[in-house]
Each structure stands twice: as structure tokens, then as C-alpha cells.
């Protein structure tokens, strides 16, 4: 029986099962039945395989073989579905039906006992004619934490938290089930229960059906969406290596118990880790800022916030990213009011010791830190940071590191660094950014490349020492395992270690080659990783890693077959093509994807070919008669592998995940990959030599002294490529585009067997078919192009206004029905490059909408939170016009790089006009005057379809608001208002509460009375990055402004971008349609998170 193909098939079927469960979500709680189904399919499959095996594979007919394949693929698929179903956690689960009959209510099935104290909720299952008031009665088993005289909760000898349990009768507050609420409304009950005995009807009732639900004690259900969140307290254990950043430490904590309010009972937590963010100001910060915190038990009080979901289409989904790693909340330590003791403290065992983590992990992390000590002694900063990142996976230490060539290799003490850091930082990218822009950032993600280099180094050293292969292979495998642990056991490393282990075992004991073990190793590694954590299937670390290895294994041979025969005129033509692509990519990247370039490049290649032919006829031997096939085998194979990786992984997946593609990566990696091999080997060798007593550290210094040259070369390469080559934003491909792309690659990879199958089919059908089927590649191309030709999903008609949630910053995209695109404001960007709304938010959003050109960018004022992103925007998008408030100097906002001189705008100017379905569509400036920051000019812009309008009030100060209200009168009316000055004006200190209230009650109230909006949008978020110390004033003013708008417009009419995320407004002939990203996410969320 062909065990290997069947096993490969089983693994891929399992992966397909998980993917299917994600696309067509299996209902929560379906995990158990699905596992039963999987077990059944396993039993049936086993029986079929045993039967086929007894008869012998060779003797089995086609039917029996098909049955054997089905017997393998079916269970794989079922297991995948079941595994994904098992990790889907329902937010609530129904525990009983409740029938209300007039004045009494009945729990179907009698009292409901819950396995743990839990929050419960009622759900409306039928319409009611009148309001119902219900109350639950039962029991609660409340845990009370025991503390010693010093207030410390110490663990018992077995490491358990010290609780006493009080069994108390429980009676809930009244639950009001309103008649007007739709069926399906969920009513949370304020008190927790361990047992619900009955439901009482308070006052008069009527017939109704409800259901009782228990809320999962999962971390995600306790986390709040926005700040300020009432502090909770947790008891838990640090279960991961602390991530130590220069400015904070993040602890991964698995909570065991959670207390929602001071003095309240403790819930036992049944799922989800959280990140505890510890700042250096915290008492005893050092206890948490290192490997020694791993395994520690902690008591932490603070705000528990849910990770931010995707704030707008194309934005970074921190919630999904952390969910993939099992993290469902972020806890910011803060002591609750009225509580005693520190916000964060370790919990000791009775003998005063702290618990430690798993011994093998502790040992691996100690080894890592020891090697880091060696690196710090033998490599100057920033080379040390680079070596720590690539050798030990310490990427956090590279955060904020800027690379300045004149400091390279000089061992400058940090004090001198800081003296002139400001001026040197000008225009210099962060090291991380340079690596991303040059396409070599993969070296910082410990991956298959690192594992291969490590395996080769150790195998080479053992061979040099003449140790037999069968003896040293287990040692190399052990080294790889330790390496995986000490670098954080990321999916890419785990994948590579599993594959290398299989390869090394097959090579040492079975005498098998690389390709056979790679084709088996990839799916087996995928199965093992996804069995452990199925969420990984869509995580970039997983898909990029597997994309890379599959590209290497599958695409290298066909690319090699394509390039090896190149010589003479064909080689000249190919080089011309590469030169044309490279030159055009550097000088005018946008032109690359146009048909005009394709024609010109093809013509140039054809001309080069003809020229080559002509020269050869005259006796000239091009390239000395040599071709790519004459290069040493490993060089051609490496070249082919690089082309394969770019086509199979970098281009499609970078565009899909990150909206960008490092064009220079294809070239930089030709040098970077061999170079990193040298750097990594010398660095590991130096790290290990440092352990040798006596001369060890001296030898390590010598090794890293040589390595310093290679490291410097690497850093200079990344810098040079980042400066020379573009790092453009691309139109984000849809999933179906990726499918078509990979299908096309599959045709290239399997063109020979496909061709044979087509020929065989043609011979079988006879007639004209053999000739027709010879054109199968053309048919395949048409089939692949079909999904692309049917057009993309069209947005709903009308004028669309999208308010992006950028915290304390602004950007609004206006798209008219005729396709005119205007961006109002360009977000914030700081001088250090750590925050840049244009690069991080606006351009990815435009990329998601497949927009590369903007007809105009309008700035409502020169405030940094509206204007500072403009230079980045101008660099990466084609902006036809920049429009500024009259009086604002273009140089003040970096508008000098605009294609045309910026245009001044005054009140009354029409920025754009068109007609749609007989309705006038206008973008017009309605107000111009002093902003809330003083005399600096600002604008208000109105977007209008017929008599429906959205007013973007910018930073207009009180006088400008009053003047606008008086000048326009009722003409100022708008359905939606983007509130002026982020609700209550600028951050300038000096204005007391009374002054701000007077401003709101005076000019702003008069302005609002003329606008009469049904919806007001408040753009607000953490002001710290923009305002620094002035943020407290802004926070105070915003709180007053928010209250003002809620009173005037009603709480339902106020949308806040920090809570509701992006706001989508559509104006059409039927009216104004307002939707938010948060509402869209809620509509699709039934699970945790």
C-alpha cells in the first residue's frame, strides 16, 4: 500500500477540513458530535484500508483503490472539521427554556445546575404584547480569597489558590423584557448563579417564551471594548516567555480566577489567555522584565480590554491576531479605587518561593540569555540587536532601533547616542522599516532558513570531528528542539524543526533524499501545528512559512527547467526583460502593471533577441557561449528558488496580508540569504564558544569581530535597497484572485502530467479532439481568467463618506457616484516614524478598496493630527490636487511634494460638482476661519447629494462656528455632522470647565441648532501620541463635549470612533444610510471572540 501518499492525503484533508470549518463555520458546541462523527469515519476508513491491505494494493481494482483513498480523506476532513469546532467557544449556551404563563413562569426541566458560578442571561424567544418583569432565584457558590496578615494570597503546597466557598441563596434584580424589543434580544442578569431554581414574574405578565442562557467564563466575555473599564482582579500564571520591549514588558498570563468588582465573588476562568502590560514605572518592574517571570503566579488588578478588532476594512485586526495565539484580552495594571495592595504582585508558595515554569523551557531560556550575554560582550550596538534578533529570536529588542551608518561598528555608548539622536533621526528609517522595505525582514522571523543553517552547521562540525551520521543526528535534532524553544516556538520554527527532524531521520537511517522527505514533512508539520492550534491556518506566520517551503519544493524545478537552457540571444532577451522590469520598477513602479509596459518590454526583449541572433550570425559568441546552465548547480538552483519564492509566496501573500510588496526583495535576497548564512553560523558559534571556560569568551570575541563586518554589510545592504527600490502599496487581491494565481502556478508546475492527460483524453475521444486538446494551456488560461472577468463586487450606489477611526486624528474618504475620490485630512505622523497614520491606516484602507489615485486631498486645518500624514500620502499615492485653507502655508504641512502647486480654499468654493440621477452632487467649503488653536486658518466642508448632506466641521473655533451659523442660517442643515474640534475644541490649557461649558452652550449650541443633525460623529481616541502632556486637558474637554452632544442629539445619535470604529455614510435618493464597523462586526460575531 502506498503509505506515504495516503498519509500526505490524510494531512491535506485535515487542513482542508479546518479551512472548510472556517469558511462555513461549524455551529459552536458542535465539536463533540463532530469528534464522534470523525471517530466513526476513522473506524469505517480503518476497516476499508484493512480489507484493501489484505488483498494487496497491486491486486486491488480501481474501485477498491478509490475506496481506500476515500477511507483516508474522509476521516482527515472530519477530524479537521471537529478540531476547529472544538476551539470555537460559544459566548452563551442555552441551559433551559422558560415558559411564562400569565403570573407564573416555569423552567422547563426543573432547576438548572451550572458546573460553575456563571453569569446568566434571558433571551426573548417570542413576541410579547406588554412588558414583562422577571426575577431569578437560586443559589450561588461564591469563592472568597483567603489572604495572610500582609494581604498576600499565597498558594497552598500543591500550587492551588486559597479559597473558601460560601453557598448562598441568590436572587436577581428585576429583568425588564420590553414588548418593543425584537425576538432574540438578550437580557443579562446582574447577579451570577451556580443554580437557578425558578423564574418569578413580578406584577402582571402574559404568555411568552424565553430561554435561559449561561455566559461562558471565558476571558473574552469579561473584557470591555473601550476605556475607561472598571478594574477587575485576576489570579493567574505567566505561561509564556515575557516579551521585553525597551519601553514595557508584556506577560502572557493564563488566568485561573477573575473577580469582576472589589469584594465580589471569584469566577473560575475556563478559557483564554491575556496579555498583562507592565510599564517600567511599576513597582518591582525588574521582577517581570525577564525570563525569570516565566512560570510565576500573579495577582493583577487593572482594566481588562478586548484587543481591538479590525477598525476598518483593510486595517490590522489585533483581535484575530492575538486570538490566533490564544490571547483574548489585554490587562493594564491599575489598582481599583477602594482596594488595597499593589496592582500587580507575585503569589508565593507557602515556603515563600515562587513557582517556576516547565524545566525544559526554563533551561532553554537561560541558555538564550547566556548567549545574549555573550553577544552583548562581543558585538557593539546596534549589531548586537541585529544578532540577538536573528540568532535568538529577540525581535522585541529591535523596536525603535534606528540604524545610522556612521555609528556602525563603533561601539558608541548610549549617552552619546542620545545627544544627537534627534538630528540624525531626520529622514532615517527605523531598522525594522528598512528591513521590511528591502524585503529581508524574514531573517528576523526565525524560520526554516535559520533551522537549515543551524542543522548544516552542526552536521558540518560533527562531520569535521568524524563522528558517524547515525550517532550525531539525534544530537542535531535535540539542538533544533532547544533552538525552537528558546526562539519562542513560532509556527515557522516548529514547522522547520519537524521537517528537518523527519529529513535527518530519513537521511541517517533510511538513506532517503531531501525532496521525498520535504513532500511528506510539509503536510505532517501542518497537521501537527494545526492539531495543536487550528486558528493558525490563517495566521501569516503559518501561511507564509508553508507558502515559502511549498514554493521552494514545487516551483524551483519548473523555474530551473525554464532558466537553465537560457543562453545566447535568449539569455540576452531575458536579461533585457529583467533590466526593463528593474529599471521601470525603480523609476516608475506604477507603470509596471500596465499593458503599455508589457508591450514595450516584450518589444525590447524581441529586439534584444534579434540583435543577439544578428551578432551570432556574424560570429560573435554572446556571453562567451555560456548560459545560465553553465553556472555552478547550487547557484542556478538558488536563483530558481528565489524566483519561485517571489512568485509563490512573496508577491501574492505580501499583497494579500500587508497590501505591500518589497520590490527590491528579489534582488536583496540574492545577497542577503547567503550573507545571513555566514552571520548566523558565526554568531551561533561565538555564542557557544562563550560557554567554554577560560579562552571561550576571547574566541567568541574574535568570531564576532569577523561577524561584525558581515553584519555591517547586511545592514548596509538593507539600507541601500530600501533607499533605492520602491516599497509600494498594491491593490489588495481578493481571495479568488489568489485562487486563480495559485491555480495558474499549479498548471505551470504540473504542465507535463496535465499535458499527458490531455493527450490521453484526446486519443480516447478520437476525431478532432487530439488536435483541440493540444491547446489545453490556452483552455486552462481562459478557465483561470473567467473568475477575474466576471467583475468585482460593486459597492452600493450613491455618494460614500467613510470616517476612519484614527484615535486623536482624522481622515475621511469621500467617493462620489461618478468615481471622484477626495480624502479630507491625512492623519497624524510623528517625527520618529513609530506612528504614521498614512502608512499604517489610510493607504492600507485605500489599498483594500483598490484605490491608488486620489483626485484631491483637502486639509481642514494645519493641525498635526490632520496634516502630518500628507508627505507620506503624497509619496505613495497619486494625488491630483492638494487643497488647503486659505492662509495656510503649503510648506507648513509638507505639501511641497504635490504634483501641482496646492490650491487655497475659502468659504463658498465648490471643490467638486457632478450630477447623479438628476440630483446635484457637491463637495463645497462652507466655512473658513480661525481654528480652536488660535488664528491658524481652518475649513469646514460639506458633502451633498440633493438636499442630503454631511458636514465636516474640522477644527473651527467658537468664533468661526458662530460666524458660520449666522452666515448660513438654516442653509447649514446637514444629516450627519462630524463634530468640530473633536467635540470640545483644542487641547490648549487655561480654559476651565466653566469656559468650555460656556463655549458649548454658546457658539457650539447655536451652530448645532442650525445644522440639526440626526447623527453626530465624535472623532476621538488616545490623545497621548499627538498631544503628549496636553492630553489631560483634551480628555477633560472631550468628556464635557461628549456629554453635551449626547444631551442635544440623544445617545443613539452620537457615534464615537473609538467605540464604533469606522463610520460608513451613504447618501442616495432615498436618504442617508449610516453604518459602523463595530455594528458590522457584531452582526457577524456569534463566538468568542
Amino acid at each position, binding site marked *: 500500500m502506498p503509505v506515504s501518499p495516503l498519509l500526505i492525503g490524510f494531512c491535506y484533508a485535515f487542513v482542508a477540513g479546518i479551512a472548510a470549518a472556517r469558511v462555513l463555520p461549524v455551529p459552536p458546541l458542535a465539536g463533540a458530535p463532530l469528534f464522534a462523527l470523525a471517530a466513526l469515519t476513522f473506524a469505517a476508513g480503518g476497516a476499508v484500508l484493512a480489507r484493501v491491505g489484505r488483498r494487496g494494493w497491486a491486486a486491488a481494482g480501481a474501485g477498491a483503490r478509490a475506496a481506500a483513498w476515500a477511507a483516508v480523506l474522509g476521516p482527515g476532513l472530519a477530524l479537521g472539521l471537529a478540531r476547529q469546532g472544538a476551539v470555537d467557544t460559544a459566548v452563551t449556551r442555552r441551559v433551559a427554556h422558560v415558559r411564562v404563563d400569565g403570573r407564573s413562569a416555569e423552567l422547563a426541566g426543573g432547576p438548572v445546575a451550572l458546573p460553575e458560578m456563571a453569569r446568566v442571561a434571558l433571551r426573548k424567544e417570542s413576541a410579547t404584547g406588554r412588558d414583562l418583569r422577571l426575577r431569578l432565584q437560586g443559589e450561588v457558590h461564591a469563592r472568597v480569597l483567603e489572604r495572610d496578615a500582609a494581604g498576600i494570597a499565597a498558594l497552598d503546597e500543591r500550587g492551588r489558590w486559597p479559597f473558601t466557598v460560601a453557598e448562598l441563596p441568590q436572587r436577581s434584580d428585576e429583568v425588564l423584557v420590553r414588548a418593543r424589543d425584537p425576538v432574540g434580544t438578550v437580557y443579562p442578569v446582574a447577579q451570577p448563579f451556580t443554580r437557578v431554581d425558578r423564574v418569578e414574574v413580578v406584577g402582571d405578565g402574559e404568555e411568552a417564551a424565553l430561554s435561559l442562557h449561561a455566559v461562558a467564563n471565558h476571558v473574552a466575555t469579561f473584557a470591555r471594548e473601550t476605556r475607561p473599564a472598571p478594574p477587575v482582579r485576576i489570579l493567574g500564571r505567566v505561561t509564556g516567555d515575557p516579551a*521585553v520591549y525597551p519601553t514595557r514588558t508584556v506577560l502572557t498570563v493564563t488566568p485561573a480566577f477573575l473577580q469582576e468588582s472589589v469584594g465580589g465573588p471569584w469566577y473560575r476562568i475556563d478559557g483564554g489567555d491575556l496579555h498583562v502590560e507592565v510599564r517600567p514605572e511599576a513597582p518591582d518592574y*525588574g521582577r517581570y522584565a525577564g525570563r525569570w517571570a516565566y512560570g510565576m503566579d500573579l495577582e493583577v488588578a487593572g482594566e481588562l480590554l478586548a484587543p481591538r478588532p479590525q477598525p476598518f476594512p483593510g486595517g490590522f485586526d489585533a483581535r484575530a491576531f492575538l486570538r490566533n495565539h490564544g490571547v483574548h484580552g489585554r490587562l493594564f495594571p491599575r489598582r481599583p479605587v477602594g482596594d488595597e495592595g499593589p496592582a500587580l504582585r507575585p503569589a508565593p508558595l507557602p515556603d515563600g518561593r515562587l513557582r517556576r515554569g516547565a524545566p525544559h523551557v526554563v533551561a532553554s531560556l537561560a*541558555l538564550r540569555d547566556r548567549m545574549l550575554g555573550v553577544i*552583548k560582550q562581543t*558585538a557593539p550596538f546596534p549589531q548586537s540587536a541585529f544578532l540577538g534578533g536573528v540568532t535568538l529570536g529577540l525581535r522585541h529588542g529591535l523596536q525603535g532601533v534606528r540604524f545610522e551608518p556612521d555609528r556602525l561598528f563603533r561601539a558608541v555608548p*548610549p549617552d552619546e547616542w542620545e545627544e544627537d539622536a534627534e538630528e540624525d533621526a531626520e529622514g532615517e528609517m527605523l531598522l525594522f522599516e528598512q528591513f521590511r522595505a528591502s524585503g529581508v525582514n524574514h531573517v528576523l522571523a526565525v524560520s526554516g532558513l535559520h533551522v537549515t543553517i543551524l542543522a548544516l552547521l552542526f552536521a558540518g562540525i560533527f562531520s569535521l570531528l568524524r563522528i558517524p551520521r547515525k550517532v550525531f543526528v539525534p544530537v542535531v535534532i535535540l539542538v533544533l528542539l532547544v533552538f525552537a524553544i528558546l526562539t519562542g516556538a513560532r509556527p515557522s520554527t516548529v514547522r522547520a524543526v519537524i521537517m528537518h527532524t523527519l529529513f535527518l531521520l530519513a537521511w541517517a537511517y533510511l538513506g532517503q533524499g531531501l525532496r521525498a522527505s520535504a513532500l511528506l514533512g510539509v503536510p505532517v508539520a501542518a497537521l501537527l501545528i494545526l492539531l495543536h492550534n487550528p486558528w493558525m491556518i490563517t495566521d501569516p506566520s503559518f501561511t507564509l512559512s508553508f507558502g515559502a517551503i511549498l514554493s521552494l519544493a514545487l516551483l524551483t524545478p519548473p523555474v530551473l527547467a525554464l532558466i537553465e537552457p537560457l543562453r545566447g540571444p535568449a539569455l540576452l532577451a531575458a536579461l533585457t526583460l529583467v533590466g526593463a522590469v528593474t529599471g521601470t520598477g525603480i523609476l516608475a513602479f506604477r507603470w509596471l502593471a500596465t499593458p503599455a509596459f508589457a508591450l514595450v518590454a516584450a518589444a525590447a526583449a524581441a529586439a534584444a533577441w534579434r540583435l543577439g541572433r544578428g551578432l551570432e550570425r556574424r560570429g560573435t559568441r554572446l556571453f562567451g557561449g555560456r548560459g545560465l546552465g553553465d553556472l555552478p548547480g547550487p547557484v542556478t538552483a538558488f536563483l530558481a528558488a528565489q524566483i519561485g519564492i517571489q512568485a509563490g509566496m512573496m508577491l501574492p501573500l505580501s499583497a494579500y496580508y500587508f497590501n505591500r510588496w518589497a520590490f527590491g526583495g528579489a534582488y536583496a535576497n540574492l545577497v542577503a540569504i547567503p550573507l545571513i548564512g555566514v552571520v548566523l553560523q558565526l554568531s551561533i558559534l561565538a555564542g557557544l564558544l562563550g560557554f567554554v571556560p577560560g579562552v571561550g569568551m*576571547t574566541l567568541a570575541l574574535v568570531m564576532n569581530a569577523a561577524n561584525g563586518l558581515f553584519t555591517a554589510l547586511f545592514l548596509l545592504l538593507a539600507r541601500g535597497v530600501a533607499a533605492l527600490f520602491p516599497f509600494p502599496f498594491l491593490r489588495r487581491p481578493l481571495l479568488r484572485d489568489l485562487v486563480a494565481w495559485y491555480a495558474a502556478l499549479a498548471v505551470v508546475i504540473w504542465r507535463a502530467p496535465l499535458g499527458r492527460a490531455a493527450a490521453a483524453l484526446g486519443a480516447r475521444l478520437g476525431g478532432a479532439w487530439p488536435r483541440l486538446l493540444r491547446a489545453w494551456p490556452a483552455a486552462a488560461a481562459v478557465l483561470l481568467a473567467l473568475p477575474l472577468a466576471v467583475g468585482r463586487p460593486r459597492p452600493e450606489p450613491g455618494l460614500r463618506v467613510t470616517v476612519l477611526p484614527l484615535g486623536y486624528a482624522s481622515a475621511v474618504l469621500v467617493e462620489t457616484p461618478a468615481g471622484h475620490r477626495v480624502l479630507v485630512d491625512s492623519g497624524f505622523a510623528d517625527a520618529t516614524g513609530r506612528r504614521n497614520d498614512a502608512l499604517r491606516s489610510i493607504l492600507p484602507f485605500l489599498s483594500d478598496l483598490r484605490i491608488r489615485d486620489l483626485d484631491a486631498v483637502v486639509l481642514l486645518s494645519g493641525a498635526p493630527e490632520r496634516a502630518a500624514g500628507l508627505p507620506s500620502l503624497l509619496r505613495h499615492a497619486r494625488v491630483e490636487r492638494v487643497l488647503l485653507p486659505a492662509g495656510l502655508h503649503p510648506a507648513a504641512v509638507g505639501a511641497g511634494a504635490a504634483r501641482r502647486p496646492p490650491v487655497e480654499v475659502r468659504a463658498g468654493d465648490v471643490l467638486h460638482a457632478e450630477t447623479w440621477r438628476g440630483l446635484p452632487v457637491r463637495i463645497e467649503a462652507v466655512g473658513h476661519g480661525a481654528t480652536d488653536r488660535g488664528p491658524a486658518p481652518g475649513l469646514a466642508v460639506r458633502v451633498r447629494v440633493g438636499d442630503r448632506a454631511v458636514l465636516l466641521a474640522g477644527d473651527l473655533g467658537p468664533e468661526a462656528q458662530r460666524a458660520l451659523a449666522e452666515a448660513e442660517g438654516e442653509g447649514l442643515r446637514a444629516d450627519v455632522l462630524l463634530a468640530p474640534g473633536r467635540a470640545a475644541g483644542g487641547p490648549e490649557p487655561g480654559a476651565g470647565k466653566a469656559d468650555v461649558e460656556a463655549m458649548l452652550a454658546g457658539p457650539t449650541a447655536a451652530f448645532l441648532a442650525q445644522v440639526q443633525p440626526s447623527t453626530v460623529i465624535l472623532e476621538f481616541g488616545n490623545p497621548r501620541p499627538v498631544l503628549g502632556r496636553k492630553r489631560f486637558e483634551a480628555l477633560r474637554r472631550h468628556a464635557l463635549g461628549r456629554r453635551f452632544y449626547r444631551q442635544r442629539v440623544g445617545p443613539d445619535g452620537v457615534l464615537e470612533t473609538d467605540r464604533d470604529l469606522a463610520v460608513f455614510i451613504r447618501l442616495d435618493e432615498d436618504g442617508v444610510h449610516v453604518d459602523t464597523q463595530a455594528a458590522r462586526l457584531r452582526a457577524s460575531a456569534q463566538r468568542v471572540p
Partner: protein
Amino acid sequence: MTDPRTRTLGWLLAGAFLLGLLVTALHPAYRGALRAIWSGAPETSPIWRSNERYYPRIGPRGEEVRPDAR
């Protein structure tokens, strides 16, 4: 006989070692680091001092460095 690739590795390592010796002899920071290692006080080395803010709690032997101990 040793595998040719293994021999190449051996030559590369030997070459790197010679290159490292040259750099250590010529570069003042590396000379300073060598003196600090030999004198048993690695914290005085210019290379160590350039790394003062890089994982400041990790000592020369990977041990935890408490701020009051520095």
C-alpha cells in the same frame, strides 16, 4: 575522507577566525573588549557599554541584573 562541503565549512571557519583576529587587533573597541575580558571585568568594555540599554537586565553570563546592583 571528509565530505568536500564539510571541508569548505572548515576553511570558512578558519578564514573567519583569521579575519576576526585582524579586526580585534586593529579596532580599538574590540581591543578594549579583549582587555576587559582578560581583566575579568566585562562591564568596563566599550562594547558592553554600547549595549547598556539593550536588554539592560541581562548580565554578561545571562544572569538577572537588578538596577540597584548596577
